[in-house]
């Protein structure tokens, strides 16, 4: 019998909120989480703005001693996972531990720790390096620490697919549940790359906005005056469960995760090709793999980075896939408010797609004052749009030519045995 996968729990920390409810309220209100960088002195850098977490208290999620040894991306992952597991009400113990897995993606891993310990190495020599350096740096330690905390002994992995890592993780987790290798997965993505190295590195590529004097207006997807993305941090983690297992324990079901499409551009290390055919195929595969009628898709959470190329080519790809229907569906980039969480984006934006379905609201794209030439879809400018959303896609694309698309739909009991 076909195994279906449903979402039963969600957790996030990101620049607009430290819980799912806070985040959703901020997104629907069109509130920006972008501001001047406070984590370090960004004066020497071309970009001095980012989407930092606000009033996040790590001690709600990790002990003081533990905190010293974990990179921020792992702390964010533990926070998201704690909220998601609690929200799902799932108990992981002897009866199911081997059937519960963990896949958490990260684009970069422990960049803050690399920078800190590298400075120690340079200044004080190799003997002064913390023994916790490597376990704080490795990207897969987000999944590792979560699995240890909950005793989840099923499949574990960590896709490191740049800005698509969160969606890659959720997609892989989805396939494992469908395939019968797990009954539940803790899956998502996290990032903590607002560091001198992270900002300077993306600055060197000329990928970041430098609208330093007006941070809240800096992330402008699809707008004529966009000048690159704004980096954000945090992420999102979801609990994916096999439908029968979720129903058996009487879990609340948010929505069904029904499709995943993953393709490579095989084109350029950082730029998408005109028309973005890899994105076209990943959207098409996500829908075709579950027999979803493209006309059922009411909302797309766009990759929408606000880089000059992405927004035009993503628009072309959506038109290619949906034809006439692209004129009626709502497409928004919540990165206009959160900034770009890199590997965390796919996790957070999967949650946004689910909330759009359950609450019947397309969150807006803010700062879209003058749509650019070639950007002529309904991007839900400025104001959230109440609408019935039967199905939604979450698009994420990453450096290295990775395209990962998740397809969600309203959960419906399809009769006995379904």
């Amino acid at each position, binding site marked *: 019998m076909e195994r279906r996968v449903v979402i039963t729990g969600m957790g996030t920390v990101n620049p607009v909120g430290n819980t799912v409810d806070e985040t959703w309220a901020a997104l629907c209100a069109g509130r920006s989480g972008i501001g001047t960088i406070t984590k370090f002195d960004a004066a020497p850098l071309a970009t001095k703005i980012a989407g930092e977490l606000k009033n996040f208290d790590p001690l709600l999620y990790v002990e003081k*001693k533990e905190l010293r040894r974990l990179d921020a991306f792992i702390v964010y992952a533990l926070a998201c996972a704690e909220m998601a597991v609690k929200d799902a009400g799932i108990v992981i113990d002897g009866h199911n531990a081997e059937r519960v897995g963990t896949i958490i993606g990260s684009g970069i891993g422990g960049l803050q720790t690399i920078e800190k310990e590298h400075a120690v190495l340079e200044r004080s020599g190799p*003997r*002064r390096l*913390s*023994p*916790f350096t490597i376990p704080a740096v490795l990207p897969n330690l987000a999944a590792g620490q979560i699995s240890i905390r909950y005793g989840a002994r099923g499949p574990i992995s960590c896709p490191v697919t740049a800005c698509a890592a969160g969606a890659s993780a959720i997609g892989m987790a989805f396939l494992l549940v469908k395939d019968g290798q797990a009954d539940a997965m803790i899956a998502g993505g996290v990032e903590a790359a607002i560091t001198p190295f992270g900002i300077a590195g993306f600055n060197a590529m000329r990928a970041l906005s430098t609208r330093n004097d007006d941070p809240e207006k800096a992330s402008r997807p699809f707008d004529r005056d966009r000048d690159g993305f704004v980096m954000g941090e945090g992420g999102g983690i979801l609990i994916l469960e096999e439908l029968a297992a979720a129903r058996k324990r009487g879990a609340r079901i948010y929505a069904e995760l029904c499709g995943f499409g993953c393709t490579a551009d095989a084109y350029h290390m950082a730029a998408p090709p005109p028309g973005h055919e890899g994105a076209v195929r990943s959207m098409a595969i996500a829908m075709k793999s579950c027999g979803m009628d493209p006309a059922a898709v009411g909302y797309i959470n766009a990759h929408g980075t606000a880089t000059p190329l992405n927004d035009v080519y993503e628009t072309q790809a959506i038109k290619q896939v949906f034809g006439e229907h692209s004129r009626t569906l709502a497409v928004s980039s919540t990165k206009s408010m959160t900034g770009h969480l890199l590997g965390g984006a796919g996790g957070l934006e999967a949650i946004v797609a689910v909330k759009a379905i359950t609450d019947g609201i397309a969150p807006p794209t803010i700062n879209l004052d003058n749509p650019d030439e070639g950007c002529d879809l309904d991007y839900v400018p400025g104001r959230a749009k109440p609408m019935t959303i039967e199905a939604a896609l979450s698009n994420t694309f990453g450096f290295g030519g990775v395209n990962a698309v998740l397809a969600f739909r309203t959960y419906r009991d399809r009769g006995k045995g379904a």
Partner: protein
Amino acid sequence: MSIEEKVIEIIVEQLDVTREECVPEASFIEDLGADSLDLVELIMAMEENFGIEISDEELQKIRTIQDAISYIKKKKGLAG
């Protein structure tokens, strides 16, 4: 602050244990819940605080709080 007091202060901070748990015969691993990486970090903190260097070989012999105190006193040329 005496060497004893300083050692205990470092242990309390590094291992997140209480002062009451820090009796001289307490073993770092068995009684204070440290693992091998905790121990490396703890010894690093002591090296830094007391301006000494402890080799990996010597590290193996330091099992209890008293071991650490005696070792540091010896290293500093004080009677242990």
